[in-house]
Protein backbone atom coordinates (compact mmCIF):
# COMPACT_ATOMS: atom_id res chain seq x y z
CA UNK A 1 0.00 0.00 0.00
CA UNK A 2 1.30 3.45 -0.91
CA UNK A 3 1.86 5.67 2.12
CA UNK A 4 0.90 9.32 1.53
CA UNK A 5 1.74 12.25 3.74
CA UNK A 6 -0.65 15.19 3.74
CA UNK A 7 0.69 18.51 5.00
CA UNK A 8 -2.17 20.98 4.99
CA UNK A 9 -3.23 23.45 7.68
CA UNK A 10 -6.70 24.09 6.27
CA UNK A 11 -9.04 21.59 7.89
CA UNK A 12 -11.57 21.64 5.07
CA UNK A 13 -9.00 20.88 2.42
CA UNK A 14 -7.39 18.23 4.64
CA UNK A 15 -10.77 16.54 5.14
CA UNK A 16 -11.40 16.41 1.39
CA UNK A 17 -7.96 14.92 0.81
CA UNK A 18 -8.25 12.37 3.61
CA UNK A 19 -11.68 11.17 2.60
CA UNK A 20 -10.82 10.71 -1.07
CA UNK A 21 -7.36 9.21 -0.59
CA UNK A 22 -8.86 6.72 1.83
CA UNK A 23 -11.47 5.80 -0.74
CA UNK A 24 -8.76 5.27 -3.38
CA UNK A 25 -6.86 2.89 -1.14
CA UNK A 26 -3.93 5.01 0.03
CA UNK A 27 -2.58 4.87 3.54
CA UNK A 28 -2.55 8.40 4.93
CA UNK A 29 -0.67 10.34 7.55
CA UNK A 30 -2.07 13.84 8.05
CA UNK A 31 -0.15 16.79 9.43
CA UNK A 32 -1.10 20.42 9.99
CA UNK A 33 2.19 22.25 9.59
CA UNK A 34 5.53 21.95 7.81
CA UNK A 35 7.58 21.12 10.90
CA UNK A 36 5.35 18.22 11.89
CA UNK A 37 5.41 16.98 8.28
CA UNK A 38 9.24 17.06 8.25
CA UNK A 39 9.33 15.02 11.46
CA UNK A 40 6.94 12.40 10.03
CA UNK A 41 8.87 12.15 6.76
CA UNK A 42 12.03 11.30 8.66
CA UNK A 43 10.32 8.68 10.83
CA UNK A 44 7.97 6.92 8.42
CA UNK A 45 8.43 5.51 4.98
CA UNK A 46 6.57 8.09 2.89
CA UNK A 47 6.21 7.53 -0.85
CA UNK A 48 4.03 10.45 -1.87
CA UNK A 49 3.75 13.77 -0.05
CA UNK A 50 1.05 16.34 -0.76
CA UNK A 51 2.26 19.67 0.53
CA UNK A 52 0.34 22.88 0.93
CA UNK A 53 2.42 25.92 0.01
CA UNK A 54 1.36 28.25 2.83
CA UNK A 55 1.55 26.53 6.21
CA UNK A 56 2.50 27.58 9.74
CA UNK A 57 6.03 26.95 11.09
CA UNK A 58 7.54 25.82 7.77
CA UNK A 59 6.04 26.47 4.34
CA UNK A 60 5.73 23.92 1.55
CA UNK A 61 8.62 25.29 -0.51
CA UNK A 62 11.04 25.18 2.40
CA UNK A 63 9.85 21.68 3.33
CA UNK A 64 10.31 20.59 -0.26
CA UNK A 65 13.89 21.92 -0.36
CA UNK A 66 14.65 20.11 2.91
CA UNK A 67 13.30 16.83 1.54
CA UNK A 68 15.31 17.15 -1.67
CA UNK A 69 18.42 18.11 0.28
CA UNK A 70 18.57 14.76 2.03
CA UNK A 71 19.37 11.32 0.69
CA UNK A 72 16.53 8.77 1.05
CA UNK A 73 16.40 5.03 0.49
CA UNK A 74 13.48 5.49 -1.85
CA UNK A 75 12.25 8.35 -3.95
CA UNK A 76 9.56 10.61 -2.42
CA UNK A 77 7.13 11.97 -4.99
CA UNK A 78 6.14 15.53 -4.09
CA UNK A 79 2.91 17.24 -5.06
CA UNK A 80 2.49 20.91 -4.23
CA UNK A 81 -1.06 21.95 -3.54
CA UNK A 82 -1.76 25.66 -3.47
CA UNK A 83 -3.97 28.60 -4.31
CA UNK A 84 -0.98 30.25 -5.95
CA UNK A 85 -1.36 29.83 -9.68
CA UNK A 86 0.91 32.48 -11.16
CA UNK A 87 3.54 31.26 -13.65
CA UNK A 88 6.33 32.57 -11.42
CA UNK A 89 4.92 30.67 -8.41
CA UNK A 90 4.69 27.45 -10.37
CA UNK A 91 8.30 27.85 -11.51
CA UNK A 92 9.39 28.52 -7.93
CA UNK A 93 7.66 25.33 -6.80
CA UNK A 94 9.33 23.21 -9.45
CA UNK A 95 12.70 24.81 -8.71
CA UNK A 96 12.32 23.71 -5.08
CA UNK A 97 11.97 20.13 -6.31
CA UNK A 98 8.27 19.30 -6.59
CA UNK A 99 7.22 16.67 -9.12
CA UNK A 100 3.72 17.96 -9.67
CA UNK A 101 1.69 21.03 -8.96
CA UNK A 102 -2.04 21.27 -8.30
CA UNK A 103 -3.84 24.55 -7.81
CA UNK A 104 -6.70 24.98 -5.36
CA UNK A 105 -9.58 24.53 -5.55
CA UNK A 106 -8.62 21.18 -6.99
CA UNK A 107 -10.83 18.67 -8.71
CA UNK A 108 -10.78 15.25 -7.03
CA UNK A 109 -10.85 13.38 -10.33
CA UNK A 110 -7.78 15.27 -11.45
CA UNK A 111 -6.05 14.62 -8.13
CA UNK A 112 -6.78 10.90 -8.50
CA UNK A 113 -5.22 10.87 -11.96
CA UNK A 114 -2.17 12.80 -10.77
CA UNK A 115 -1.66 10.40 -7.87
CA UNK A 116 -1.71 7.56 -10.41
CA UNK A 117 1.13 9.28 -12.22
CA UNK A 118 2.98 9.55 -8.92
CA UNK A 119 2.51 5.82 -8.31
CA UNK A 120 3.86 5.04 -11.77
CA UNK A 121 6.96 7.21 -11.26
CA UNK A 122 7.61 5.61 -7.86
CA UNK A 123 7.33 2.16 -9.47
CA UNK A 124 9.86 3.10 -12.15
CA UNK A 125 12.17 4.66 -9.60
CA UNK A 126 12.09 1.51 -7.46
CA UNK A 127 12.87 -0.64 -10.48
CA UNK A 128 15.86 1.57 -11.17
CA UNK A 129 17.08 1.31 -7.58
CA UNK A 130 16.68 -2.49 -7.69
CA UNK A 131 18.74 -2.82 -10.83
CA UNK A 132 21.35 -0.46 -9.39
CA UNK A 133 21.59 -2.73 -6.35
CA UNK A 134 21.94 -5.80 -8.58
CA UNK A 135 24.63 -4.14 -10.69
CA UNK A 136 26.48 -3.10 -7.55
CA UNK A 137 26.32 -6.70 -6.32
CA UNK A 138 27.63 -8.01 -9.64
CA UNK A 139 30.39 -5.42 -9.79
CA UNK A 140 31.71 -6.19 -6.32
CA UNK A 141 31.22 -9.95 -5.97
CA UNK A 142 32.76 -13.06 -7.45
CA UNK A 143 30.02 -14.88 -9.33
CA UNK A 144 31.25 -18.39 -8.50
CA UNK A 145 31.85 -18.16 -4.75
CA UNK A 146 29.77 -15.05 -4.06
CA UNK A 147 32.67 -13.69 -2.01
CA UNK A 148 33.88 -10.13 -2.63
CA UNK A 149 35.89 -9.94 -5.84
CA UNK A 150 39.50 -8.78 -6.13
CA UNK A 151 38.52 -5.21 -7.00
CA UNK A 152 36.25 -4.84 -3.96
CA UNK A 153 38.45 -6.60 -1.42
CA UNK A 154 41.31 -4.26 -2.39
CA UNK A 155 38.97 -1.26 -2.08
CA UNK A 156 38.02 -2.38 1.40
CA UNK A 157 41.66 -2.96 2.30
CA UNK A 158 42.47 0.61 1.21
CA UNK A 159 39.71 1.96 3.47
CA UNK A 160 40.69 -0.23 6.40
CA UNK A 161 44.37 0.67 6.00
CA UNK A 162 43.57 4.40 6.18
CA UNK A 163 41.28 3.83 9.13
CA UNK A 164 44.02 1.93 10.94
CA UNK A 165 46.34 4.93 10.45
CA UNK A 166 43.67 7.34 11.70
CA UNK A 167 42.72 5.27 14.71
CA UNK A 168 46.23 4.03 15.34
CA UNK A 169 45.09 0.40 15.38
CA UNK A 170 46.62 -2.33 13.21
CA UNK A 171 44.97 -4.09 10.31
CA UNK A 172 46.14 -7.50 9.16
CA UNK A 173 45.82 -9.49 5.96
CA UNK A 174 45.81 -13.23 5.36
CA UNK A 175 46.65 -14.59 1.92
CA UNK A 176 45.34 -18.11 1.47
CA UNK A 177 45.93 -20.57 -1.34
CA UNK A 178 44.43 -24.04 -1.84
CA UNK A 179 47.10 -26.74 -1.85
CA UNK A 180 47.52 -28.75 -5.06
CA UNK A 181 44.47 -27.11 -6.59
CA UNK A 182 45.86 -27.47 -10.12
CA UNK A 183 46.08 -31.19 -9.54
CA UNK A 184 42.40 -31.30 -8.45
CA UNK A 185 41.41 -29.48 -11.63
CA UNK A 186 43.60 -31.65 -13.84
CA UNK A 187 42.50 -34.94 -12.27
CA UNK A 188 38.78 -34.35 -11.78
CA UNK A 189 37.94 -31.51 -14.14
CA UNK A 190 36.92 -27.88 -13.62
CA UNK A 191 33.46 -28.68 -12.27
CA UNK A 192 35.01 -30.42 -9.29
CA UNK A 193 37.50 -27.58 -8.94
CA UNK A 194 34.57 -25.17 -8.79
CA UNK A 195 32.85 -27.27 -6.14
CA UNK A 196 36.01 -27.11 -4.03
CA UNK A 197 36.29 -23.33 -4.45
CA UNK A 198 32.65 -22.80 -3.46
CA UNK A 199 32.96 -24.95 -0.34
CA UNK A 200 36.29 -23.44 0.75
CA UNK A 201 34.78 -19.95 0.30
CA UNK A 202 31.80 -20.92 2.41
CA UNK A 203 34.00 -22.34 5.21
CA UNK A 204 36.14 -19.19 5.25
CA UNK A 205 33.13 -16.92 5.42
CA UNK A 206 31.59 -19.02 8.18
CA UNK A 207 34.74 -18.88 10.30
CA UNK A 208 35.61 -15.17 10.22
CA UNK A 209 34.39 -12.55 12.67
CA UNK A 210 31.47 -10.38 11.60
CA UNK A 211 33.63 -7.36 10.80
CA UNK A 212 36.35 -9.29 8.94
CA UNK A 213 36.20 -9.43 5.16
CA UNK A 214 37.25 -12.11 2.72
CA UNK A 215 37.43 -12.01 -1.06
CA UNK A 216 38.52 -14.17 -3.95
CA UNK A 217 41.85 -12.67 -4.90
CA UNK A 218 42.72 -14.85 -7.88
CA UNK A 219 42.05 -18.40 -9.20
CA UNK A 220 42.43 -20.36 -5.96
CA UNK A 221 43.79 -17.52 -3.86
CA UNK A 222 41.75 -15.77 -1.18
CA UNK A 223 42.51 -12.63 0.78
CA UNK A 224 41.10 -11.95 4.23
CA UNK A 225 41.18 -8.54 5.96
CA UNK A 226 41.20 -8.47 9.74
CA UNK A 227 40.61 -4.94 11.11
CA UNK A 228 42.06 -4.15 14.53
CA UNK A 229 44.16 -7.33 14.51
CA UNK A 230 47.91 -7.47 15.24
CA UNK A 231 50.12 -10.13 13.66
CA UNK A 232 49.80 -12.52 16.60
CA UNK A 233 46.01 -12.50 16.49
CA UNK A 234 46.04 -12.68 12.70
CA UNK A 235 48.09 -15.88 13.07
CA UNK A 236 45.45 -17.30 15.40
CA UNK A 237 42.60 -16.45 13.08
CA UNK A 238 44.53 -17.86 10.10
CA UNK A 239 45.02 -21.10 12.02
CA UNK A 240 41.26 -21.22 12.66
CA UNK A 241 40.69 -20.77 8.92
CA UNK A 242 43.16 -23.55 8.11
CA UNK A 243 41.35 -25.97 10.42
CA UNK A 244 37.93 -24.97 9.15
CA UNK A 245 38.97 -25.90 5.61
CA UNK A 246 40.61 -29.26 6.34
CA UNK A 247 38.51 -30.58 9.23
CA UNK A 248 35.96 -32.28 6.97
CA UNK A 249 36.32 -33.69 3.49
CA UNK A 250 34.57 -31.76 0.74
CA UNK A 251 31.78 -33.55 -1.08
CA UNK A 252 32.15 -33.28 -4.85
CA UNK A 253 30.81 -35.16 -7.86
CA UNK A 254 34.17 -37.03 -7.89
CA UNK A 255 33.67 -38.13 -4.29
CA UNK A 256 34.88 -36.67 -1.00
CA UNK A 257 38.14 -34.76 -1.29
CA UNK A 258 40.58 -33.86 1.44
CA UNK A 259 41.49 -30.21 0.86
CA UNK A 260 44.09 -28.16 2.70
CA UNK A 261 45.25 -24.56 2.44
CA UNK A 262 48.49 -22.63 3.02
CA UNK A 263 48.21 -19.23 4.69
CA UNK A 264 50.46 -16.20 5.11
CA UNK A 265 49.83 -13.23 7.38
CA UNK A 266 51.02 -9.62 7.41
CA UNK A 267 50.07 -6.74 9.67
CA UNK A 268 50.27 -2.96 9.47
CA UNK A 269 51.81 -2.94 12.97
CA UNK A 270 55.00 -3.36 10.98
CA UNK A 271 55.60 0.38 10.41
CA UNK A 272 57.62 -0.19 7.26
CA UNK A 273 54.43 -1.34 5.49
CA UNK A 274 53.49 2.06 4.16
CA UNK A 275 50.69 1.04 1.81
CA UNK A 276 48.30 -1.80 1.12
CA UNK A 277 50.70 -3.07 -1.57
CA UNK A 278 53.15 -3.98 1.21
CA UNK A 279 50.49 -5.85 3.15
CA UNK A 280 49.41 -7.84 0.11
CA UNK A 281 52.97 -8.51 -0.98
CA UNK A 282 54.18 -9.69 2.43
CA UNK A 283 51.16 -11.85 3.20
CA UNK A 284 51.69 -13.40 -0.24
CA UNK A 285 55.37 -13.99 0.55
CA UNK A 286 54.44 -15.56 3.90
CA UNK A 287 51.94 -17.80 2.09
CA UNK A 288 54.69 -19.04 -0.30
CA UNK A 289 56.86 -19.61 2.74
CA UNK A 290 54.04 -21.80 4.13
CA UNK A 291 54.00 -23.74 0.85
CA UNK A 292 57.75 -24.32 1.16
CA UNK A 293 57.34 -25.43 4.77
CA UNK A 294 55.26 -28.36 3.51
CA UNK A 295 51.81 -26.74 2.99
CA UNK A 296 48.68 -26.94 5.22
CA UNK A 297 50.20 -24.46 7.67
CA UNK A 298 50.21 -20.77 8.68
CA UNK A 299 53.17 -18.42 8.54
CA UNK A 300 52.77 -15.21 10.57
CA UNK A 301 56.20 -13.65 11.01
Amino acid sequence: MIQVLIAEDDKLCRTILEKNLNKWGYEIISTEDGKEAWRVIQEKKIQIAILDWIMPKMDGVELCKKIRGKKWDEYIYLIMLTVRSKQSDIRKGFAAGVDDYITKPFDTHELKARLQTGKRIIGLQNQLLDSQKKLQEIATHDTLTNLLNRYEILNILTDEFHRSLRENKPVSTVMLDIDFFKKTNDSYGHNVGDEVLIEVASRLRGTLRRYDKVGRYGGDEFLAILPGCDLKNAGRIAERLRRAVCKERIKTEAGQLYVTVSLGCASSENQSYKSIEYLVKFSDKAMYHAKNMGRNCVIAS
Partner: protein
Amino acid sequence: MINNESSHGNSPIDYPSALARIGDDESFLEELLDLYKMDFGTKIEGLQKAIEQEDFVSMQELGHSLKGSSANLSLPFLQQAAVDMESAGRDKNLDNARGALGSLGQEFQNLQEFLSAKE
Protein backbone atom coordinates in the same frame (compact mmCIF):
# COMPACT_ATOMS: atom_id res chain seq x y z
CA MET B 1 -31.01 17.01 1.47
CA ILE B 2 -29.10 19.23 -0.93
CA ASN B 3 -30.62 19.74 -4.35
CA ASN B 4 -28.44 19.55 -7.40
CA GLU B 5 -29.76 22.83 -8.60
CA SER B 6 -27.76 24.36 -11.39
CA SER B 7 -25.91 27.50 -10.48
CA HIS B 8 -27.20 30.92 -11.33
CA GLY B 9 -25.98 34.39 -10.67
CA ASN B 10 -27.51 34.80 -7.24
CA SER B 11 -26.92 31.35 -5.78
CA PRO B 12 -24.35 31.53 -2.97
CA ILE B 13 -23.13 28.02 -3.80
CA ASP B 14 -22.51 26.33 -7.13
CA TYR B 15 -23.65 22.81 -6.19
CA PRO B 16 -22.80 20.90 -9.36
CA SER B 17 -19.30 22.30 -9.37
CA ALA B 18 -18.72 21.66 -5.62
CA LEU B 19 -20.13 18.14 -5.84
CA ALA B 20 -18.06 17.23 -8.87
CA ARG B 21 -14.93 18.58 -7.23
CA ILE B 22 -15.23 16.57 -4.03
CA GLY B 23 -16.18 13.30 -5.72
CA ASP B 24 -19.99 13.46 -6.11
CA ASP B 25 -20.82 12.61 -2.53
CA GLU B 26 -23.75 14.69 -1.22
CA SER B 27 -23.53 13.76 2.42
CA PHE B 28 -19.81 14.51 2.34
CA LEU B 29 -20.58 17.96 0.93
CA GLU B 30 -22.97 18.56 3.81
CA GLU B 31 -20.30 17.49 6.24
CA LEU B 32 -17.82 19.87 4.60
CA LEU B 33 -20.29 22.75 4.72
CA ASP B 34 -20.75 22.18 8.47
CA LEU B 35 -16.98 22.21 8.84
CA TYR B 36 -16.83 25.42 6.81
CA LYS B 37 -19.46 27.11 8.99
CA MET B 38 -17.60 26.25 12.19
CA ASP B 39 -14.31 27.40 10.77
CA PHE B 40 -15.89 30.58 9.41
CA GLY B 41 -17.03 31.65 12.90
CA THR B 42 -13.49 31.35 14.28
CA LYS B 43 -11.98 33.22 11.35
CA ILE B 44 -14.50 36.08 11.51
CA GLU B 45 -13.64 36.59 15.17
CA GLY B 46 -9.97 36.59 14.22
CA LEU B 47 -10.64 39.18 11.53
CA GLN B 48 -12.58 41.44 13.86
CA LYS B 49 -9.69 41.37 16.29
CA ALA B 50 -7.17 41.96 13.51
CA ILE B 51 -9.09 45.04 12.30
CA GLU B 52 -9.34 46.44 15.85
CA GLN B 53 -5.59 45.99 16.30
CA GLU B 54 -4.76 47.03 12.72
CA ASP B 55 -2.96 43.71 12.30
CA PHE B 56 -2.66 43.65 8.50
CA VAL B 57 -0.65 40.42 8.35
CA SER B 58 -3.45 38.49 10.08
CA MET B 59 -6.04 40.10 7.78
CA GLN B 60 -4.08 38.91 4.78
CA GLU B 61 -3.54 35.40 6.19
CA LEU B 62 -7.12 34.87 7.32
CA GLY B 63 -8.43 36.31 4.06
CA HIS B 64 -6.15 33.95 2.14
CA SER B 65 -7.33 30.97 4.13
CA LEU B 66 -11.03 31.82 3.69
CA LYS B 67 -10.42 32.35 -0.01
CA GLY B 68 -9.12 28.76 -0.26
CA SER B 69 -11.93 27.08 1.67
CA SER B 70 -14.62 29.13 -0.11
CA ALA B 71 -13.16 28.18 -3.47
CA ASN B 72 -13.07 24.51 -2.45
CA LEU B 73 -16.81 24.54 -1.82
CA SER B 74 -17.66 26.76 -4.80
CA LEU B 75 -18.94 29.69 -2.76
CA PRO B 76 -18.23 32.48 -5.28
CA PHE B 77 -19.43 35.50 -3.28
CA LEU B 78 -17.73 34.47 -0.06
CA GLN B 79 -14.61 33.78 -2.09
CA GLN B 80 -14.73 37.29 -3.59
CA ALA B 81 -15.17 38.88 -0.16
CA ALA B 82 -12.21 36.84 1.12
CA VAL B 83 -10.10 37.97 -1.85
CA ASP B 84 -11.00 41.59 -0.96
CA MET B 85 -9.95 41.00 2.65
CA GLU B 86 -6.64 39.50 1.58
CA SER B 87 -5.98 42.49 -0.73
CA ALA B 88 -6.97 44.97 1.98
CA GLY B 89 -4.47 43.32 4.33
CA ARG B 90 -1.76 43.39 1.69
CA ASP B 91 -2.50 47.04 0.81
CA LYS B 92 -2.79 47.94 4.52
CA ASN B 93 -6.16 49.55 3.78
CA LEU B 94 -8.31 49.52 6.91
CA ASP B 95 -11.45 50.92 5.20
CA ASN B 96 -11.39 48.19 2.56
CA ALA B 97 -10.84 45.60 5.30
CA ARG B 98 -13.92 46.84 7.17
CA GLY B 99 -15.88 46.69 3.90
CA ALA B 100 -14.69 43.16 3.21
CA LEU B 101 -15.61 42.08 6.73
CA GLY B 102 -19.14 43.42 6.17
CA SER B 103 -19.42 41.54 2.86
CA LEU B 104 -18.17 38.33 4.45
CA GLY B 105 -20.85 38.61 7.16
CA GLN B 106 -23.59 39.39 4.65
CA GLU B 107 -22.61 36.61 2.24
CA PHE B 108 -22.36 34.11 5.07
CA GLN B 109 -25.88 34.98 6.16
CA ASN B 110 -27.10 34.54 2.57
CA LEU B 111 -25.49 31.12 2.47
CA GLN B 112 -27.07 30.09 5.78
CA GLU B 113 -30.51 31.17 4.58
CA PHE B 114 -30.07 29.44 1.27
CA LEU B 115 -29.00 26.20 2.94
CA SER B 116 -31.81 26.18 5.50
CA ALA B 117 -34.37 26.84 2.73
CA LYS B 118 -33.03 23.71 1.02
CA GLU B 119 -33.48 21.50 4.05
